[in-house]
């Protein structure tokens, strides 16, 4: 009798947990999928073909949001794709790496550049406001969070009280060796805006 009660309790508990987790999973997917896709229909046909390789290969391990949001120089992306080729279970051969790089270069010089220009134009002389949008535009939230939004494994709350503007610039452009953060190729104006925003993140 006791066993039957225990079994039923376990079943009820697991179904409740499943329902709760399923609900949260669906909610997460909604957020995730919106970040995963871009419309490449206006891109040249060869770049659209490159995008397919990029989408197929890169989503295998980490989803596309981080690559679609981060900005890097052509050399930076080349180094990053080479690094990915040297990971365990990497299925990216040299030809596919070349196609991925072509897409990333095109996307960097068109969609990402246009997005940053639009941010600068819309925010006038408020660098911290522009910086906040740059923070999203450069994909900083794929590794960092602010007020619990973004990747909470590396929260930036309070960083404005701990670092000076110069230190922050140095950390962004040339992080210390051994750091997981890649050196960011950021135009001076964007860098000023980003730092202005980060300096507003004071301890409360």
């Amino acid at each position, binding site marked *: 009798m006791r066993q039957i009660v225990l079994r039923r309790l376990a079943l009820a508990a*697991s179904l409740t947990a499943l329902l709760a*987790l399923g609900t*949260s*999973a669906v909610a997460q997917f909604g957020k995730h*999928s919106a970040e995963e896709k871009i419309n490449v229909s206006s891109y040249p046909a060869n770049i659209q073909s490159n995008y397919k390789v990029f989408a197929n290969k890169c989503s295998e391990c980490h989803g596309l949001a981080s690559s679609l949001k981060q900005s890097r120089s052509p050399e930076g992306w080349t180094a990053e794709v080479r690094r990915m080729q040297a990971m*365990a279970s990497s299925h990216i051969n040299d030809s596919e790496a070349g196609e991925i790089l072509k897409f990333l270069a095109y996307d960097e010089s068109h969609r990402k550049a246009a997005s940053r220009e639009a941010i600068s134009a819309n925010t006038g002389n408020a660098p911290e406001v522009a910086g906040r949008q740059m923070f999203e535009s450069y994909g900083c939230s794929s590794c960092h969070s602010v007020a619990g939004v973004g990747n909470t*494994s590396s929260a930036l709350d309070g960083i404005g009280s701990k670092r000076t503007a110069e230190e922050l610039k140095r950390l962004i452009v040339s992080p210390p060796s051994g750091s997981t953060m890649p050196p960011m190729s950021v135009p001076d104006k964007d860098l000023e805006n980003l730092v202005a925003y980060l300096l507003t993140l004071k301890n409360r």
Partner: protein
Amino acid sequence: MISRNRFVFLACAVASLLVILGPRQASAVPQYARRYGITCYACHTIPPVLNQQGYMFQRLGHHLPPALEVSKPVQRILDLVRKEREWTVANNASFAVADFNYSAQRSTQEGQGSTSTSAIQVGSWNAYFGGWVPDTNFFYFAEMDIVAGGETNVDLPNAHIGYVGGTAKSSWYGTVGREHLQIAQGTRAAQVYSLLPSAPLVFENTGPTNFVFDQSPVGIAGGYTWASSKYKNIFGINAKLTNGDNADGSEILGASNKNSKDIWVDADWWYAPESGISFVTYQGKKNQTQNSGLSNEFTYNARIRREGVFANYMIGRDKVDLLGGYLHGNDDWQDPATQTPGTYQTNGGFGEVNYYVWRGLALAGRYDRLKQDLTGALRPTTLEQWQVGAERALTPTGNIVGRIAAGNSHGVDPIAFTGSATRTFEADIQFSF
């Protein structure tokens, strides 16, 4: 009027279609994927089958293997530790790795007719706690099984702590505690977990000596791993010294009067990206009881020995995986009636094909054959088993997986010489959060 058989067939067909064509919407990631913001496919072909990266993840003390670029400095394990994300409960624990299944089984036993059973049940529900001790090379892994085989039965098949040293290229580790034989061992074909619901017979068969290869012994283990640039080749060796088993086959978790330890050794070679070969050996001793509970009960010290080789090779642009394995067993055995010493010998093998149609969908088929030969028996007997199935990830990250499989097993008991056959159909869905 639809006949019962047709109804069952239609239900199975609908279930199969739901699994294969079902919704892909929902996403969440369990602990390791949460920690690094990666998908399950980073370490699994389809969960639970580990790929090369998953193997290295375990060998490096639960740290994501870094890129091994030609002519770039190789990171030390401590470098990996320093780059780890902030330690949180969320990236160290998974509370709901559960499997819900429907299974139908029809068994026929010689002289007893047929019986049919079916069940919809919580097949398994496990919780995992695994990660690293911040700022140190220590790591830990614990698995609590709350439900197993449809029964609520709390168990702790994994509970160990370890230390890993060296570099990402050349590393070593040691662990102490209870550890499933699967942990950090074996290339693809040597893994107990496969795309099909049942593991190969050679891992699961319990012989007259009550020894089963698939177990979680208590002991100490150590291993060394070397990886070439870009992980083109990985060589790993692992050895364990364990308590062994009680007379009934359960693992000795505490003190016992058995005054010997058992030895497990395996050597693995991964050839990039996903092919490999593993050599496995086990040498142990157990206090075996015969005629348990009867007036003529007796106990003897049976030596248990296993030697095997398992290999897989991927062809067709990593779409088709050909797997095979062979395990030889040579155990001491005493006849229950005469107490005459003898041996229980087994020669078991399997061949398996996995076809990865696209990411998250795979078809699999396996044939198993196990020949058993007991001293004093009339003749050797054979067990045969085949299974076919499809496994489909239902989320882009691969943390919800549906599976259907059908199988047949038949053979003759090596002692009683009675024949039996079992047909099975299983549909299950596994959630990992």
